[in-house]
Every structure is written in structure tokens, then in C-alpha cells.
């Protein structure tokens, strides 16, 4: 409360308000760019940090793809660059597992959770619902700095002896609990756990802020059912984060105890390195349950914001209202609820009770229904539209395509019986990379291209955007489509080399194609980063007479080119309609922003309805 008033006074130079014993803060470099409480600056901080992590995570994937694609070749150049991860020009198995683990951790948590929903929830929620800022700017700031601290801890884990965590991003004990089981389960694992605890703190603070902002700070007329779908999606994302991450806290705390105090939560009857341990009575499967209670909702944390943004961008660029707005909202709600009750479908083959497995199969396949509704609604939104193609809408269309391709294989894996064959094969890798990796990234790119002018007051280079899209789109299919075939051939994931096995060693061609695709896509992402950084400083400027470059209906385009802290200079616009009045009037303008009052004709129609 106090902070809000302070914050308000900070931003609002000169406008008198009720409680004004407050003083005008001077905007210094530190409180404007570093310890900023402005949601837009925090969003940019999340975006930059997320991008740096994405480059690191992507680079890791290139490194281990090099090993998988050319298992017999040596790469002295990589050894020069990455030192002790390579011996004699070949990736070390331990380093390989470390890279795989960190690629997963970084991408899932740091890029697609913090980088995606951290960026866009911060940026879009206040701007699109018509609020001056988040409910609590201070907690919002803390949320970023917890994330930053967590990043620093995770980054430092690359440099400890034994390297970073290497037990897979799911850190299943006992592998992660016993330092003698793997070099990465030593100090690296400890830092992983610390980093993740800080990260959960960050998500929690962010999530509480997003939820209370959406509920309490909407401008006049902004009913819940007038909110853009982005806000709905980010709202539910925040709810999922609030409810699922705490369970990971419990799981992580118990794992820390097992590692440090010799407790027996997850350990029982273990004989390792020639010694029988005294732990007994724990259950390794318990950790898997706790982990996936978070882990499954986590994939919706990753995909929902992308869905929201894509809905918004598709509607804007096809100049049509999103089809079935309420169905879209309820399908997000449905996905949220189902997301919490299906976690164990990751564990069908973990020794879980087969009876309970069947219940989880049932719940899991139910998720296909809201997902299908969303896909059909997007298609209908495009149908008979007037589709403008730019980088943002291309990535949105790409999103729908990969979401279909990755979504249908979910029906395979969700069915426990098929999972017997496909569990832990490349089929799984293909499925989740397409449906939550590539799709979420495409949503993120669409969002960046679409809101870049709002974030930085300049445009990105569209032509490079097209190149970025086409290479990424084709590349994604080159990388991940063949993985289905590997999976159907039984090739297991997380293998450093397939040479030992007759059955798995005959796919050199596919692995090479996949690796080349990965390198190509990675370079395309570097191009995007170059475009991004260049455009911040030298991109085409957004001008004052064209504040709404995409002719969009939502409120963020009613602000200045680069809105200051507080977003609107004058009064906050009042909202009279939902966010999707595109091409409503067959003769008039093809869009009607939310802050335009209803016409008399519309009023008459409204009253007729009631």
C-alpha cells in the first residue's frame, strides 16, 4: 500500500493525489534501469536475461548434437573453446550428460518460464488491462532479482569441480542424491537445488503480483470477459505457478535433506561403490510424484502464455475477432485444471501402480479436448480473414502448425499402453520439444516481434524476421520430425552414443540430419539476436502519428511511443468493449479499439439482446 503511493508519486510528477506527503524521487540510473519498479523495465530485464540463457541453452544443445551427429569425428576447435568438457576433441560422457541436463533446466525454467511469462506477464498485464503498474512494484522487482540470483548460482555451477548437475533435468534420486553415483551429483547438484529454490521464490512473487493485478487493477469497464486472451492466459499461468511450484519446494527440500543429513525420504536399500548405505524406508518414486506434480503443470506454464499471445496476434493480423472467445477462455481454464491431475503420466513405467496408471491415462487424454478446441478456433479465426503476414503472424501460424504436430503425438504418449513402447525414447523427445519447446519459442518470438515497437519504440527488421521464421520453421521440422522415427525404432533418449547397441546404431543418417538442422536453427537464432540488439538502437522509429502500427484493439497501443512509469500520461482510458472488434462494421474501419465508446447502433443491439 505505502509502496503503491510512493510509486505513484514517483511516476506522477506534478499530479496531486490524495496521500501526498510523498516526495518526488529523482530517477537515477540505478532505480531506472537496475532496481527499477516499473513493470516495463522489469519485463525487459526478464527478456534480456532470458535471451542470454536461451543462447547458452541453445549452444549446449548444439554441442551435444555434434556428438550425436558425428560420433566418430573429433573437433579440436570445440576443445579450444570449451576446454575440459572435451578430451581429444571429443565430448566427454559426463560433460554430455551435464549439457543435456543443463539444456533442459535452462530452457524449461530460465527461458520458457522466466523469460517467457516473466517478460510478457510483466509487460502486457498492466498495459492491456489499463493499470499504472503491477499491484506491488517492489515485490515485482524482487521477483526479477531472485531470478537473477538464481541465474548466477546456476551459472556458477558450471565451474565447480565435477561440473553442473548431470542427472537429467528431472533430477531423479537416487542418482541426484548420491554424490558417488555421478560427478554431477556433487557440488553441481547442490547449486542446482539452491538455484531452483531461489527461482521458485521468484516465480511465486511474480505470480502473486500478476494474479492480484489482474483481479484488482483493471481499468473502468475492463470486465474479466473483456480482457484480451493474452491476459487470460498469463493469469492462469500465474495461478498454475502459485499452486505447483510450492510442491517442488517440498520435493527439493526433502532431497536436500537426503543429500546432507543422511535422511531416508527417497533412499532405501542402496548398495553403491562397494558400500551398503543405511538408508531405508524411503521411496524414489515419491520424488517423481512430487516432481511431476510441479513438472506437468510446468509445461502449461510454458505453453499457455504462448497460446494467449498467438490468439491475440492471429486475431489482429487476420482482422477477425478470435473465434469462440469464451470457449478459448474456458479451454485455458480446462487445461489449467486438468494440468494438475495428470502428473503421473510421466511415470507410467516407473514402477507405479498400474491401476492408478489407468486413471491417469483417462485424465491425460481429456486434455486433448480443450487443446483441440483451441486449434479449431485458431483455424476458424483464419478462415475468411484478411490475413496480414509479418514476422509476428508468421510465427503465430508456425505456432499453430507445430502445436498440431506436437499435440497429436501427445495422444500417443498419454495412453499408458503405448507408453510401454515409447517411454524414454526419442519419440518423447520429439513430442515435447515440438509441443512445448518449439511452440513456446514461436509464441515468444511472435510476441517479441509484435510488441517490440511498444517495448523499445522502434521496429525490428521484418525481412530478417522472415528469414528467421522460415529457417526456424523448416529447421524445427528437420530436427524433430525424424526423432519420431528414431523413437519408433526404439532408440532411447539420453544416450551418449549408440555404438554399443546393434539395434540403435543404424541411424547415423538421421542423427546427422538432426544435428545439421540444430546448427542451422541455432545460427538463425543468433541472427534474431543480432536483429533484436541492432533494432533497439538503430531500428526504424515508431512515430507519434502512428502509435498503433498493427491496428490493434488493445489498450497498450493507446499509450505514448515509449510510455513512462505510470503508462498513461493523462487519465487511464475507459474500456467499452471486448478486445476483438475487428471488421465488425462491414462498411467502417476494420478495427475498433477497446476504448472507443459503443455506437448508437451497437447500444441498440445490446439492449435488444437483454
Amino acid at each position, binding site marked *: 500500500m505505502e509502496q503503491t503511493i510512493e510509486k505513484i508519486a514517483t511516476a506522477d510528477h506534478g499530479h496531486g493525489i490524495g496521500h501526498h506527503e510523498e516526495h518526488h524521487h529523482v530517477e537515477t540510473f540505478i532505480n531506472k534501469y537496475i532496481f527499477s519498479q516499473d513493470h516495463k523495465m522489469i519485463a525487459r530485464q526478464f527478456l534480456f536475461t532470458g535471451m542470454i540463457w536461451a543462447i547458452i541453452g541453445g549452444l549446449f544443445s548444439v554441442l551435444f548434437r555434434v556428438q550425436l551427429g558425428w560420433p566418430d569425428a573429433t573437433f579440436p576447435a570445440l576443445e579450444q573453446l570449451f576446454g575440459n568438457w572435451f578430451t581429444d576433441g571429443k565430448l566427454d560422457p559426463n560433460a554430455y550428460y551435464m549439457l543435456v541436463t543443463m539444456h533442459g533446466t535452462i530452457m524449461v525454467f530460465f527461458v520458457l518460464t522466466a523469460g517467457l511469462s516473466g517478460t510478457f506477464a510483466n509487460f502486457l498485464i498492466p498495459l492491456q488491462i489499463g493499470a499504472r503498474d503491477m499491484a506491488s512494484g517492489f515485490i515485482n522487482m524482487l521477483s526479477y532479482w531472485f531470478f537473477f540470483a538464481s541465474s548466477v548460482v546456476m551459472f556458477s555451477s558450471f565451474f565447480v569441480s565435477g561440473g553442473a548437475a548431470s542427472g537429467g533435468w528431472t533430477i531423479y534420486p537416487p542418482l541426484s542424491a548420491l554424490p558417488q553415483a555421478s560427478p554431477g551429483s556433487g557440488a553441481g547438484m547442490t547449486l542446482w537445488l539452491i538455484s531452483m529454490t531461489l527461482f521458485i521464490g521468484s516465480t511465486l512473487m511474480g505470480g502473486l503480483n500478476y494474479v492480484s493485478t489482474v483481479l484488482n487493477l483493471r481499468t473502468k469497464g475492463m470486465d474479466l470477459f473483456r480482457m484480451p486472451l493474452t491476459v487470460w492466459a498469463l493469469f492462469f499461468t500465474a495461478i498454475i505457478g502459485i*499452486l505447483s511450484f510450492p510442491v517442488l519446494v517440498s520435493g527439493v527440500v526433502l532431497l536436500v535433506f537426503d543429500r546432507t543429513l543422511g535422511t531416508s525420504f527417497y533412499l532405501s536399500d542402496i548398495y553403491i561403490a562397494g558400500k551398503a548405505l543405511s538408508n531405508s524406508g524411503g521411496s524414489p518414486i515419491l520424488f517423481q*510424484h512430487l516432481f511431476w506434480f510441479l513438472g506437468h503443470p510446468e509445461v502449461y506454464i510454458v505453453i499457455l502464455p504462448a497460446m494467449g499471445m498467438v490468439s491475440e496476434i492471429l486475431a489482429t493480423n487476420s482482422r477477425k475477432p478470435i473465434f469462440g472467445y469464451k470457449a478459448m477462455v474456458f479451454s485455458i481454464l480446462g487445461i489449467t485444471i486438468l494440468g494438475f*491431475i495428470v502428473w503421473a503420466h510421466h511415470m507410467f513405467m516407473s*514402477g507405479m501402480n498400474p491401476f*492408478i496408471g489407468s486413471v491417469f491415462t483417462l485424465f491425460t487424454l481429456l486434455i486433448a479436448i480443450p487443446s483441440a478446441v483451441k486449434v479449431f478456433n485458431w483455424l476458424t479465426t483464419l478462415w475468411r480473414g484478411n490475413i496480414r503476414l509479418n514476422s509476428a503472424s508468421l510465427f503465430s501460424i508456425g505456432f499453430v502448425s507445430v502445436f498440431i504436430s506436437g499435440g497429436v503425438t501427445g495422444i500417443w504418449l498419454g495412453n499408458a499402453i503405448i507408453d510401454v513402447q515409447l517411454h524414454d525414447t526419442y519419440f518423447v523427445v520429439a513430442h515435447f520439444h515440438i509441443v512445448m519447446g518449439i511452440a513456446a519459442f514461436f509464441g515468444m518470438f511472435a510476441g517479441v516481434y509484435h510488441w517490440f515497437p511498444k517495448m523499445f519504440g522502434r521496429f525490428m527488421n521484418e525481412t530478417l524476421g522472415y528469414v528467421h521464421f522460415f529457417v526456424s520453421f523448416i529447421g524445427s521440422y528437420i530436427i524433430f520430425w525424424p526423432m519420431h522415427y528414431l523413437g519408433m525404432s526404439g532408440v532411447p533418449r539420453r544416450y551418449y552414443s549408440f555404438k554399443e547397441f546393434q539395434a540403435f546404431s543404424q541411424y547415423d543418417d538421421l542423427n546427422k540430419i538432426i544435428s545439421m538442422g540444430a546448427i542451422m536453427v541455432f545460427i538463425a537464432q543468433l541472427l534474431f539476436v543480432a536483429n533484436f540488439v541492432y533494432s533497439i538502437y538503430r531500428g526504424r522509429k515508431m512515430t507519434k502519428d502512428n502509435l498503433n502500427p498493427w491496428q490493434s484493439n488493445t489498450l497498450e497501443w493507446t499509450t505514448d511511443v515509449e510510455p513512462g512509469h505510470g503508462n498513461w500520461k493523462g487519465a487511464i482510458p475507459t474500456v467499452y468493449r471486448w478486445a476483438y472488434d475487428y471488421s465488425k462494421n462491414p462498411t467502417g474501419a476494420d478495427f475498433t479499439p477497446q476504448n472507443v465508446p459503443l455506437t448508437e447502433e451497437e447500444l441498440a443491439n445490446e439492449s435488444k439482446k437483454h
Partner: protein
Amino acid sequence: MSHGHILGDSEYKSQVSAVWKATLYMGIITIVEVVIALLWMNYLADSLPRLMLNVFFIVASALKAFFIIAEFMHLKYEKRALIISLAVPLVFLVWAIIAFSWEASAWFHMKGLVSP
């Protein structure tokens, strides 16, 4: 609850008495719980199934939890929307409890497969 509003005397009295009443109930429930636990331990262990006792304990605790949430945390007097938004997520926990206990009994059964 708006801030400008200052409690009147009658409101104040009724609120304070509601709090004490809830305290009294909770105290009674706790005493009954402990007494029954001791009775069961000393006299009833053979005649009453343990399950019945456990159900009683769970119900009694839920009742105590209700008093804390409703009276002490004042939730009873808040908007229904808030109550629902807090209660609905707890359904996930119910499913979690069912699933985890189901699993635990399976582990128990599986361990029995090798232990003599």
C-alpha cells in the same frame, strides 16, 4: 473490508465474542481428541477398529481448521468469490492425497514381494 470504516461498539462486541466462542470450541475439540486417543490406547484398542478412530481425528481436525479459517482468518465474512478461489485449488490436493496413498499401498505390497 474497507479501511475508512471504524468498528462500532456492538459490532466490536459481537466479533470479540465470536472469537472467544471459536476458541472455546477448538479447546473442547482438542481435549476430546486427546482424551479419546488415551482411552483408545488404554481400553478400547481391542474393541474398536483403528480406522474409526482415525476418521474421528480427521473430522475433528477439519473442524478445528474450519474455525481457524472461518473465524480467526475471517474468511467467513469475505466475498464468496474469494472463498471459492481459495477452496477450489484444494480439490487438487484431495486427488493428490488419493493418488499418493494409492501409490503408497502399492509400494507396500511390492516390497512384500521379496521380503520374507
